[in-house]
């Protein structure tokens, strides 16, 4: 039956594409799952493909692309779901579009997938559902930040759902966790605790002993950390085990750092101390993506040289520090979808010496309808930017956020004619445009040839920006 469903799916994809109805990327999978809800499980169990699942609030797309690049450079074949198609239907569709019907018909095997690896980015909320259907070889959990509270709910809730789902995994799964994120690291430390407490070898379930060898941690060296203060947007400053306030000896950003609990002794797990010289993308957050990808590739069996080689000429994924030439000017897009990703983008742009900003704030379903998170961002030294343009569905909310930040730097301002009144005036350095095309043109107007306009959009805004800049729709 799954072969028939795959054929049907391929036919549908073909129809969507030839009738120009968009690429219809998740429909074939949607229909296959309607008819056989275990379609994914069955197709995968009949193949030898190794599965890498990646979940986390920030960094999924970049890390997936890093891993894919490493695997392909070493001669492996890889399938991957499209970024954004990270629910069950997206994964089923990926299987359909990458399956080889011919060989099945000719050889009579049930194996539809001939590739070596499948990399799937998974939505935080969907991970437990996916783990019911897929038993991954590698499960990489990057981080957990506050994101779209109206859709995902609270960080603690997600961490708890992950914990329950991970407990059910079989022995073959290697769990790769971020040591610097207390809630994520605790997912691994918990199973350690269980097996250490149970001294009687008869009582140790094969499950928990096996897990210990299968849990690996990545993180940064403390010398790479930038701060020693917990940022406002930090979400996990409290011990995931006992609830005590955590002590951070050093912090990378948000709540990622060298942490421990004074009360119960829980602490950041050890990471192998090794330096890595190839960081293809700027920004501390990308160092985490690189370390995560590197660890996965090493476990798979690539050498340091192979990995460094692969990362050297890495091109960013779409919208993630992607560089686009438009009307002969330089534009770089930094997807900024929650307080932590915004702060990291902002900080990286400052490090790059940027002086032209375009902020695009939308409040559609993929962005989260609640935009209150903009008040959790840190916009220090905003007045150093020469030119700031704001757009998006919630352009005036973002303008208000900036108004209060600008004023924050002038403790004594005469009332009534305070400086931000210039916001609406044409000579101001902050300009608001409801129309995105106009906003982009305005952002480019004062840009010199060797300068870059840095765009910080939310998710749907990023797709819109790309559509204007490249003339193509991506999703």
């Amino acid at each position, binding site marked *: 039956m799954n072969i028939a469903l795959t054929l049907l799916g391929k036919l549908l994809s073909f129809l969507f594409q030839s009738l120009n109805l968009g690429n219809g990327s998740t429909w074939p999978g949607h229909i296959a799952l309607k008819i056989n809800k275990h379609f994914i499980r069955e197709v995968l169990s009949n193949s030898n493909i190794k599965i890498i699942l990646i979940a986390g609030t920030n960094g999924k797309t970049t890390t997936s692309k890093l891993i894919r690049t490493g695997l392909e450079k070493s001669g492996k074949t890889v399938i991957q779901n499209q970024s954004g198609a990270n629910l069950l239907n997206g994964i089923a569709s990926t299987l359909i579009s990458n399956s080889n019907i011919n060989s099945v018909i000719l050889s009579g095997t049930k194996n539809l997938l001939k590739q070596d690896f499948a990399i799937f980015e998974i939505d935080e909320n969907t991970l437990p559902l996916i783990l019911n259907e897929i038993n991954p070889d590698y499960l990489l959990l990057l981080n957990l930040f506050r994101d779209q509270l109206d859709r995902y709910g609270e960080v603690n809730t997600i961490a708890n759902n992950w914990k329950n789902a991970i407990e059910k995994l079989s022995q073959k799964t290697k769990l790769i966790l971020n040591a610097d994120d207390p809630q994520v690291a605790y997912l691994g430390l918990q199973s350690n605790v269980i097996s250490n407490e149970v001294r009687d070898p008869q009582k140790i379930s094969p499950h928990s002993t096996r897990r210990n060898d299968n849990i690996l941690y990545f993180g940064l060296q403390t010398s790479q950390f930038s701060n020693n203060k917990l940022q*406002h947007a930090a979400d996990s400053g409290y011990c995931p085990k006992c609830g005590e306030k955590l002590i951070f000896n050093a912090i990378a950003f948000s709540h990622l750092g060298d942490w421990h609990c004074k009360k119960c002794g829980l602490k950041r797990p050890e990471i192998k101390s090794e330096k890595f010289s190839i960081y293809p993308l700027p920004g501390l957050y990308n160092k985490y993506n690189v370390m995560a990808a590197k660890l996965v590739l090493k476990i798979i069996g690539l050498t340091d040289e192979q990995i460094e080689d692969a990362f050297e000429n890495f091109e960013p994924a779409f919208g993630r520090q992607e560089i686009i030439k438009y009307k002969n000017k330089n534009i770089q897009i930094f997807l900024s979808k929650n307080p932590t990703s915004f702060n990291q983008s902002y900080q990286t742009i400052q490090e790059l010496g940027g002086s032209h900003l375009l902020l695009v704030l939308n409040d559609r379903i993929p962005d989260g309808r*609640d935009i209150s*998170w903009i*008040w959790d961002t840190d916009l220090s030294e905003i007045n150093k930017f020469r030119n700031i343009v704001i757009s998006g569905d*919630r352009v005036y909310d973002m303008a*208000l*956020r900036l108004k209060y930040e600008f*004023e924050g730097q002038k403790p004594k301002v005469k*009332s*009534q004619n305070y400086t931000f009144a210039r916001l609406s005036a044409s000579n101001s350095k902050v300009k608001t445009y409801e129309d995105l095309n106009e906003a982009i043109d305005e952002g480019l107007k004062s840009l010199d040839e060797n300068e870059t306009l840095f765009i910080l959009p939310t998710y749907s805004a990023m797709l819109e920006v790309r559509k204007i800049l490249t003339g193509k729709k991506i999703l």
Partner: protein
Amino acid sequence: MNNKVHKPKAKSYQLTVGWLYPELMSTYGDRGNIIVLQKRCEWRGINVKILPINQVTNNQQLKTIDLLFGGGAQDREQEIVINDLYKKKKAIKDLIERDLPALFVCGAPQLMGKYYEPAVGKRIEGLGIFDMVSKHPGINKPRLIGNIVAETLIIPGGVKLSHPWGDINRHIRIVGFENHGGRTYLGKDAKPFAKVIKGFGNNGEDGTEGVVYKNAIGCYFHGPLLPKNPVIADYLIKTALKVKYKTKVNLELLDDSLEQKAQNAILKKLKIYNE
């Protein structure tokens, strides 16, 4: 009562804004409320001190507060908060009884009511400042989420503002975003803060939003509340000055045209138009 009208001069007035558990209760951009209070004072030459209230704050420090603010917390953090709040119960109640202005948003009002019944776990006793109870109807019941518009109701004895948008007591529109699992029901001694025009409000049933006791306001509006609703911010500031200096202080007008645009954008989005 002193009838002289004072214009605030630089450094002549000083307000201490107490912020309940900034690290634990700041889930939905609540910091925005503090930033707005602080800046709107500073632009008028009123000095502001922000006092973070946490486990180490003592009752003597609490007495120095002129304006109190509390935001939303995640469930686990809420538990840590309430255990500490019990120790500060009397001090906080005293502030409210002294007519001090207070704003509690999202989770904070639930803790200031009589009790809160979470979806799982046992009932949490509140501080009992507001005559109301909050209950979570169960983990499978939908949360009340979305943009919200309401119209303020009269606050008995509230200060008068000369803001061009009008006065809290004159039914002004407020806009925000709500996201709460708990449903709040007012007791007979409690007055609602506002009447829902679009959205859910306290419980999605009776059209009430928020609660008022003396000069303390509780509401489910985040977004945060104050940036797009500067009248509420000015109301709290003016009340704080009145209580502290026992005199009428006229607040200088600020340019709120951007605030107006942001508010209009929400009204337009929800297809509510100014008549």
